């Protein structure tokens, strides 16, 4: 594991964060999708966790073949930070909007 491709893993983390964000919003807007997730894993939240975990691993292995191993770790982490903060605030604002407005 010393040879882990950090750039591929950073992109995989970013994409997983965005995927969780999109699934979360879409589940609230489409009850059919929520039911499908429930049917898949018994509970929509469990399904989201499984999908996110499998996606993270698959995305890493796919990206590992395409992304160069020349890394700028700080730049990658800064992007992960931005995506995580934006998606976290986005989820909070979505539920705030859904409840109050």
């Amino acid at each position, binding site marked *: 594991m010393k040879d882990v491709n950090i750039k591929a*893993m950073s992109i995989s983390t970013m994409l*997983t964060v965005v995927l969780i964000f999109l699934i*979360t919003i879409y589940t609230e807007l489409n009850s059919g999708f929520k039911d499908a997730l429930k049917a898949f894993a018994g509970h929509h939240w469990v399904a989201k966790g499984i999908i*996110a975990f499998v996606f993270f691993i698959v995305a890493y292995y796919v990206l590992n073949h395409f992304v160069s191993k020349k890394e700028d*770790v*700080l730049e990658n982490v*800064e992007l992960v930070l931005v995506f*995580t903060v934006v998606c976290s605030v986005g*989820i909070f604002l979505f539920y705030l909007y859904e409840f109050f407005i």
Partner: protein
Amino acid sequence: MPHPLIGIHAALGELGAIAFLWVFIELINPIPKRVKRAKVVASIAVILLFLSWFTGGYYYVNYYGTNVKPIIKEGPQPWAHSVFTETKEHVFLFIPFLALLNYFIIKKYEGTLIKDRKIRKAVMVLSLLITVLAFAMAGMGYMISTGARTALEAGAL
């Protein structure tokens, strides 16, 4: 009495947060011994955060939804569930992946973390992000507990 799993979930999550704060502190002024310790602490933190995910998830799916959520929704602070539980359960899912990424950066660059300030800064930024997010989870947990308590006080049961 609160379900014991919620305490275990919170304790594991906060220990994971404190462990990444520890990693951050070790790297402020790093020497080989501190970098090695940071790697060990980060690996423990990853395990703690995954265990927090599983215990919290089990509690949420098997207990919260049927026993706590309806009480909060009937009480004077229904937003405690509709805003804070919903946000918490989804933003939490980011944390294990961030923790894994941070651990693998430390593991890969263990030998160069002392000299390479940019990589060290990356690990410190990620450690702080995880710590802040995990403590935000605890804050939201407090809001949810308050929602349940005020509902019980108002006779929502």
